[in-house]
């Protein structure tokens, strides 16, 4: 039967188009139930006796949710308890239209066999199709379609009734009008909340219910806390005429009452608008796209340097927030003021489920609790749960449902638990989730592109490939490294010059463009190294075996070979795909020992000595050109082999061989960058490091000045030179501190596509062009560079995406994002292990240096552990000491003592486990002694007595 659907649409040019679609109805759409004898279906999804223990519907029944139930309660539907559900096509289509992620989740549920979900194409069924009637809105029509389908089901199932109880269908809807109409037509209909609450067997499901509008009323007082958000049409008009600005909302980590909105301008012009105070933040959550309105110039403020955390019991909605906000307002010089604004509307929410912990309410019986996300930039969320006791101490995920204007906190609902807090597995998962690191096991589709084992080198592989198996190649890596992606060789040529080769694992040979493995690797972007765990970018077979240039096995490589004279001048460069057979896999320490041990004269050692000599010259050249030597403290944990708990911690030591390998990698990267840029000026993937704006150096200059040292920041060279001479007598650590500080002034290095940018300079390395070529196992950018280089030397074929600068550019953006996130995850992992370490070590007294001075705190660096911590001077339970902050110094005067940057202090370090929400390292001042502020040095417990931490 043919029907037609008609609707009118506005075209882009402003015209009006009438669109008519033919719509065919069928009589062979089956109901999908096992009970049915009428339908000639091949397989059924809905079970004969669906058992859902409900005290509202004690009979066997199927459930039909309406669109809004699916949209809001998808978390509940995903639960294993909810089975035998009929998803109508009308619902599916509406969900698809309204929310793509929820649609995907719904599709996933439907595909899951055990869930017994059935999609009924009611829109094409002869008996359930309805046409829109005059005066009926699209929503009303859909509601009616759902009711008609539900009615059809209940009648249909009655017909095919067997000897057992008749099956019924239950319609779930939260719409009062719809419910009433359904009841009138004799359907079984319940509100979603009613129904879920009636599932007596599974009370925990209630927690996963999202709060719907009518529930909110009783939660909050009627007082309006926030200004209303403007409707989208007004926002758009405002954006058009320039009264509003659109930008991404970035909450401050340190201060929950402050945020910036990053407004992307045209070209390079992008500005940041400061937002201060709850009212002005107006319910924005980190990463939302918001519209802001600039305040008049006289209301502009400076970013406060107060560290402020939203802590403690739930604040009453009515409570005046004034006090904390008042602290923020400081009179400041006109020049220091930043453009300040207020959020007038939300353009796009970017809510995702957040990891964190429950902050149980003080009242025991209460079902409303606050949830504290692990990410400090996310506000606390109010959720409703009856299992607060069970959830205490657990890491859980919570999704935000909404933020009404009269509520201090957003409302949300519980999604799932990740495990108990402090547990290593759980914590690791939390930080992977929080940093958006894809960490699932590789899918079957990805694994299907792996080469079959046993793998060997075939003649086809040898086409376009040089046989370098005879060369004395060796690799130098950190201990325990299984993904070796680089190896080196050095030999003397007949003409007296040296031939140096850098051999990089030929990953692009195994990962072909466009297949599932390639796409997965491109999405992951980088391998993430956590303490004691590695999240691979490519499957392990490749990363630790076939691509890893292990000793004494034949491996495919991409080689970069130079002819170099003894002054380390490059005479010739060539690139080739090759086969190598590494003679030794050394650690940095082993390599160093061989070089230093004069008795050893084997080929490998000679090789290493030659390389080392050249590397020293190369480094000197580089530093002369103005490359920066910066410093950041990296720590290494000694991990207990059985419990995998950290037992000791030391800062990483750098040896000559580290810099030897680094030097040749830099050389290879620069050579390759030049080659691919010459060959493909429009689509080479390069890496740049922009020079920081001069204002970034302010803090460094001030700090240096306070110690009467002068730092020049006009150029990288000036900076490097002035850092080299910056010394203070009797303070050997000063130089390192300065370098740490200088590192923080730097910009982030980024990947980019050469066709999209004109500034290629790498500031830190003082190189006009740079890329990443040397670690294709753990970085996707290198794979792209390999492919480009292979095409350039005619060793491989090209493909369209490789030459498309738009796609390259989009890829670089993803890689930059993943790279950044992996660094954050790494840091978070170190921080967590540091906590574990201090948990096991108890209280320690250590020497540290003041790294930054804040308005109410100092940030102290403990060089021994590479640990940074904050010492607060105003704690809530004590009378605040007299604190004076001087921005120019910068210095902070507490009572009589004045703290400057780089001051030496003694602190006691302990793990603050009192607040299970966020365990943190607590530092308190021991020296200098300030009465009422510092504490007396506690006894340090001997290590041996301390039992290993409980797991």
């Amino acid at each position: 039967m043919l029907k037609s659907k008609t609707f009118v649409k506005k075209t882009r040019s402003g015209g009006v188009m009438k669109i008519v679609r033919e719509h065919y109805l069928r009589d062979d759409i089956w109901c999908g139930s096992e009970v049915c004898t009428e339908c000639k279906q091949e397989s059924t999804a809905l079970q004969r006796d669906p058992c859902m223990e409900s005290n509202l519907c004690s009979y066997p029944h199927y459930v039909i949710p309406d669109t809004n139930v699916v949209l809001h309660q998808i978390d509940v539907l995903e639960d294993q308890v909810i089975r035998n559900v009929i998803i109508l096509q009308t619902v599916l289509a509406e969900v698809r239209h309204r929310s793509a992620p929820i649609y995907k989740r719904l599709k996933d549920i439907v595909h899951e066999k055990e869930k017994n979900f059935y999609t009924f194409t009611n829109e094409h069924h002869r008996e359930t199709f309805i046409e829109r009637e005059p005066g009926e809105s699209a929503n009303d029509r859909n509601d009616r379609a759902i009711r008609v389908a539900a009615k059809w089901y209940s009648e249909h199932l009655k017909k095919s009734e067997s000897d057992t109880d008749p099956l019924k269908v239950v319609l779930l809807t939260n719409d009062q009008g719809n419910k009433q109409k359904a009841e009138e037509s004799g359907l079984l209909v319940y509100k979603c909340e009613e129904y879920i609450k009636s599932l007596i067997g599974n009370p925990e499901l209630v927690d996963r219910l999202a709060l719907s509008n009518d529930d909110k009323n009783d939660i909050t007082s009627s007082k309006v806390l926030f200004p209303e958000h403007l409707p989208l049409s007004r926002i758009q008009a405002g954006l058009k005429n320039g009264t509003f600005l659109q930008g991404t909302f970035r909450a401050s980590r340190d201060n929950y009452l402050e945020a910036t909105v990053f407004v992307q301008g045209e070209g390079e012009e992008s500005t940041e608008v400061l937002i201060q105070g709850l009212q002005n933040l107006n319910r924005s959550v980190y990463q939302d796209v918001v519209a802001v309105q600039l305040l008049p110039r006289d209301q502009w403020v400076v970013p406060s340097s107060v560290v402020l955390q939203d802590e403690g019991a739930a604040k009453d909605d009515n409570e005046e927030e004034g006090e904390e906000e008042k602290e923020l307002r400081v009179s400041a010089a006109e020049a220091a003021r930043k453009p300040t604004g207020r959020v007038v509307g939300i353009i796009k929410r970017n809510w995702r489920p957040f990891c964190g912990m429950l902050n149980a309410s003080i009242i025991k019986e209460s079902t409303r609790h606050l949830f504290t996300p692990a990410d400090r930039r996310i506000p606390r969320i109010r959720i409703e749960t009856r299992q607060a006791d069970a959830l205490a101490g657990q890491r859980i995920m919570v999704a935000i449902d909404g933020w009404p204007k009269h509520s201090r906190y957003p409302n949300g609902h519980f999604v799932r638990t990740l495990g108990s807090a402090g547990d290593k597995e759980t914590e690791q998962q939390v930080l992977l989730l929080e940093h958006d690191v894809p960490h699932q096991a590789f899918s079957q589709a990805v694994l299907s592109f792996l080469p079959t084992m046993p793998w060997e080198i075939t003649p086809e592989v040898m086409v376009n490939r040089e046989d370098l198996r005879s060369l004395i190649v060796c690799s130098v890596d950190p201990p325990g490294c299984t993904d070796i992606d680089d190896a080196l060789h050095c030999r003397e040529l007949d003409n007296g010059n040296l031939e140096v080769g850098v051999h990089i694992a030929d990953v692009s040979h195994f990962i072909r463009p466009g297949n599932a493995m390639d796409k997965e690797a491109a999405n992951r972007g980088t391998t993430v190294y956590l303490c004691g765990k590695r999240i691979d970018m490519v499957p392990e077979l490749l990363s630790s075996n076939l691509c890893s240039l292990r000793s004494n096995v034949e491996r495919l490589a991409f080689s970069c070979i130079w002819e170099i004279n003894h002054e380390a001048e490059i005479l010739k460069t060539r690139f080739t795909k090759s086969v190598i057979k590494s003679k030794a896999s050394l650690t940095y320490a082993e390599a160093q020992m061989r070089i230093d041990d004069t008795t050893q004269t084997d080929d490998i050692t000679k090789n290493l000595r030659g390389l080392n000599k050249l590397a020293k010259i190369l480094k000197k050249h580089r530093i002369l050109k103005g490359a920066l030597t910066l410093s950041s403290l990296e720590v290494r944990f000694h991990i207990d082999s059985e419990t995998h708990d950290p037992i000791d911690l030391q800062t990483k030591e750098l040896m000559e061989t580290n810099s030897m390998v680094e030097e040749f990698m830099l050389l290879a990267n620069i050579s390759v960058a030049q080659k691919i840029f010459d060959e493909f000026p429009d689509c080479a993937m390069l890496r740049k490091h922009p020079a920081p704006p001069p204002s970034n150096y302010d803090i460094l200059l001030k700090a240096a000045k306070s110690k009467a040292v002068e730092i020049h920041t006009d150029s990288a060279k000036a900076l490097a030179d002035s850092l080299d001479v910056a010394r203070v007598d009797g303070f050997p650590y000063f130089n390192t501190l300065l370098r740490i500080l200088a590192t923080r002034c730097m910009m982030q290095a980024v990947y980019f596509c050469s066709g999209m940018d004109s500034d290629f300079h790498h500031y830190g390395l003082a190189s006009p062009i740079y890329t990443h070529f040397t670690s294709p196992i753990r970085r996707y950018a290198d794979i792209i560079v390999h492919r480009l280089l292979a095409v350039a030397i005619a060793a491989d074929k090209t493909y369209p995406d490789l030459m498309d600068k738009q796609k390259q550019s989009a890829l670089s953006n993803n890689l930059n994002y993943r790279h950044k996130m992996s660094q954050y995850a790494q840091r978070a992992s170190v921080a967590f292990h540091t906590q574990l370490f201090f948990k096991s070590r108890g209280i320690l007294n250590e020497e540290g240096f003041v790294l930054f001075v804040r308005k109410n705190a100092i940030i102290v660096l403990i060089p021994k552990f590479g640990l940074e911590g904050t010492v607060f001077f105003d704690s809530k339970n004590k009378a605040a000491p007299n604190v004076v902050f001087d921005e120019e110094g910068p210095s902070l005067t507490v009572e009589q003592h004045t703290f400057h940057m780089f001051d030496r202090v003694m602190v006691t370090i302990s793990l603050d486990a009192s607040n299970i929400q966020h365990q943190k390292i607590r530092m308190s001042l021991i020296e200098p002694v300030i009465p009422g502020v510092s504490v007396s040095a506690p006894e340090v417990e001997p290590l041996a007595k301390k039992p290993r931490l409980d797991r």
Partner: protein
Amino acid sequence: MATVQVSEAEKVYILHGIRDDLRVDGRGCEDYRHMEIETDVVSNTDGSAKVTLGDTAVLVGVKADIGKPRPKVPNEGYVEFFVDCSANATPEFEGRGGEELGTELSNTLYKVFNNKHSVDLKSLCISAGEHCWVLYVDVLLLQCDGNLYDAISVAIKAALFNTKIPRVHISADEEGGKEIELSDDPYDCVRLNVENVPCIVTLCKVGHRHVVDATLQEKACSVASLIISVTHKGTITCTRKVGGGSLDPESIFEMTEAGKRVGKALHAPLMKLLQQEESLGKARQKVGFLG
């Protein structure tokens, strides 16, 4: 135009018949042939109608689109005509054969219909000087068996009656920028007032008398014909002489009077019929082109 060969004897027979008010097919001089009308036959137009008159068949579709009003009449919309002489109708239309006739027909239709006395053009205005509805009236000749004008005019009137123009709202923001918003309800539309839309009556001078709705044979016997467009009140909105011969003033007067009479009588049953069909709504069995 399709022509038929008529022999002298046939001519005399037809002439004598008409003189005695009896035509070859048994009609009187002011009678129409059997006429069939069906509206809403093309679903992707905003209004359509199919009319058969004897063996003449025409299909009219109306599309409404948003355009800019003509500068001289900023508060009125306008109507445009296009006549497609399909080679289906007669093999003579093949290639560009029908172009001349098509242009002639559409020019005439433009004169007859595109004025505010025939169609309520003011109601087509959306915002004065900026937006208005433009009605594109496409006429497709399916079969020619004489008296095209009358059949087309009836079909146009029926199609305009059937036309549903989507309702639009103009939302103005504070800055005065205007945005046209469409209603998302397909039933939410405006109907045109077709009361004043005229019908064309073609009178053929055959011998000393004149006939309406001439067949091709009668046409072959005629020297000239007069096209008269008449509204339901009997107001003549347009007259035009077609054909090679000449008409004396007296017979023009007579023919005009007759046209007025016939035209006036044509409107009432047409409107009744259209309203009847409309009232059936969805329950109406569609006939379409094969029925």
